[in-house]
C-alpha cells in the first residue's frame, strides 16, 4: 500500500515536472533554457569520436523524441497531401518519417565536433517562441540558427534562413507529385530508403 502510494507520488511528481517544463519552454526564457540544454546535450552525445553507428542513431533518436514535435513536423512536411491521407497512412507515416530523419541527420553532427553553440535571445511570436542562436565551427564564420518552439517541443530549425521543415516539405510534395499523387508509392519510397 505504502509502496503503491510512493510510486504514485513519484509518477505525479515526474509528470507534473514534465508538464511544467513544457509550459516553461513556451515562455521566451524557458525556450532559451530548453534549447541551450538540448544543444549542449546534442553536441556532447552526437559529436563524440569513436561512437558506433548504432549508438549514434540511438542518441539522436533520444534527442529527437525529447526535443522535437515529430508528429507535427510529419504533418507539415506532407503539405496539402496530409489531408488526403487516411488515418492508417498517417499512423504509418509518422514512424517512417522519424526513421528517415534519423538516417539523414544522425551522422551530420559528426562534422560539428568542436563547435561553439551560443543561444542569444528568444522572442514570442503568436503561439510559439523563436530562439536565436549561433553555431561556429573552428576557424569559420558564425552561422545563425533559429529554433521554433511551441508546446515544449521544437517545430522547426532554420539555418541561415533555410528551414528544415520547408525544405523537406518541398521535396516530399514534389515526390508525391512525381508518383502521380499516389501516397502509397511515395511511402514505399520512404520505407525503402530507411531499410
Amino acid at each position, binding site marked *: 500500500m505504502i509502496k503503491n502510494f510512493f510510486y504514485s507520488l513519484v509518477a505525479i511528481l515526474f509528470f507534473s515536472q514534465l508538464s511544467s517544463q513544457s509550459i516553461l519552454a513556451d515562455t521566451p526564457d524557458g525556450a532559451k533554457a530548453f534549447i541551450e540544454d538540448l544543444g549542449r546535450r546534442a553536441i556532447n552525445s552526437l559529436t563524440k569520436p569513436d561512437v558506433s553507428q548504432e549508438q549514434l542513431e540511438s542518441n539522436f533518436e533520444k534527442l529527437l523524441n525529447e526535443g522535437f514535435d515529430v508528429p507535427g*513536423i510529419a504533418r*507539415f512536411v506532407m503539405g*496539402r497531401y496530409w489531408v488526403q491521407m487516411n488515418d492508417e497512412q498517417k499512423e504509418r507515416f509518422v514512424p517512417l518519417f522519424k526513421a528517415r530523419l534519423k538516417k539523414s541527420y544522425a551522422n551530420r553532427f559528426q562534422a560539428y565536433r568542436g563547435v561553439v553553440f551560443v543561444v542569444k535571445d528568444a522572442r514570442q511570436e503568436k503561439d*510559439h517562441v523563436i530562439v536565436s542562436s549561433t553555431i561556429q565551427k573552428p576557424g569559420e564564420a*558564425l552561422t545563425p540558427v533559429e529554433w521554433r518552439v511551441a508546446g515544449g517541443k521544437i517545430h522547426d530549425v532554420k539555418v541561415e534562413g533555410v528551414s528544415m521543415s*520547408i*525544405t523537406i516539405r518541398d521535396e516530399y510534395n514534389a515526390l508525391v507529385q512525381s508518383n502521380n499523387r499516389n501516397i502509397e508509392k511515395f511511402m514505399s519510397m520512404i520505407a525503402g530508403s530507411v531499410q
Partner: protein
Amino acid sequence: MRFCLLKHGLLVATLIELGILSSGPIVANTIPEATPLSASQNEVNQSPSADLTSSASQEFSSDEGPNDPLEPLNRFVFSINEILDFALLRPVAEIYRAVTPDPLKRGVSNVLDNLFAPVSFLNHIFQGEPERATVTLFRFLLNSSIGFLGISDFASDRGYPRYDTDFNQTLITWGIDTGPYLVLPLLGSSSFRGTAGFVADYYADPLNIYLNNHHHWKYHYWLTVRYGFDMLRNREKVIETIDNLRSGSFDFYITMRSIYFQRQAYLAEKLKSAKSPEVAKEEQTRVTS
C-alpha cells in the same frame, strides 16, 4: 569562340556561348539572393513564418508550387553541373583545401572580397545607403593600400565592417520579384532577377571593365583566374554541406531549389531590417569574429 573566351573570361564567356548570361550565387546557393519585398505567391509558399502548429487544411491551402516553368531545361543544366562538380569542381576544391594553409586561404578570400568592394559601393548607392557606401569605399582604399592589395583585411581590424551587396539585392530593394527559377551552367541556382543582377555587376565592375578593354590574352586570363578562384573558395566552404544535402535528398534538384527560394526570402527579410541598429551591430560582430 577563342576570342570570346579571352574577351570575357572563361566563365562568363561559356554562359554567353550558351546564350544564358549568368547571375547570382556561385556554386548552388552558397551566396544568398532574395525574394521580393512584396509578397508574391511563391514567397508566401516558402515563408518561414508558416505556422507549423495550425490545422493542416489551413496550413497548406495556398501551396501552389514553386515558380519553375523551365524545370525540364533547369534539370538538364543541373545534371550537367552535377557531372562537372563531381568530376572537376569538388575534387579541385578538396585539393585546394588540402594544400592551402588557412592564412593563405584567408588572404585569397580577402583579395577577392576586396576586388568586389567597388561593386558593393555602387549598389549601396543604388539602395540609398550612403553610410554603408562610404564605409565600403573607405575599406577598399584602406585594404588596397595598407592591406597589401587586399590580402589583409586591415579595415575590419580597425572596426570598419564589411557590407557586401550586389545588384540582385538592389533589385530586391526596388521591389523586383525573383522571376522564375534558373539553373545556370557552373553557377548553379539562380533566377531571372539573380541573372540580371550578376550581369549588371559583371559589367559595372571597374576591374572587369579595365581588363575587358585590353585585347591582349593575359588581361582576360586574369579575369578567368579571378572568377575561377571565387568559385573555388566558395565551393571549398561547402564541401560537407553539399555532400550531406545530396546524400539526404531523394531529389537533389528540388532540395536546391527550395533552399534557393528560402534564402531569397531570408535575404529580403534581412534587407528590410538592415537599418535597425541591432542588425548592424550583429553584422559587425559577425565580420569581426
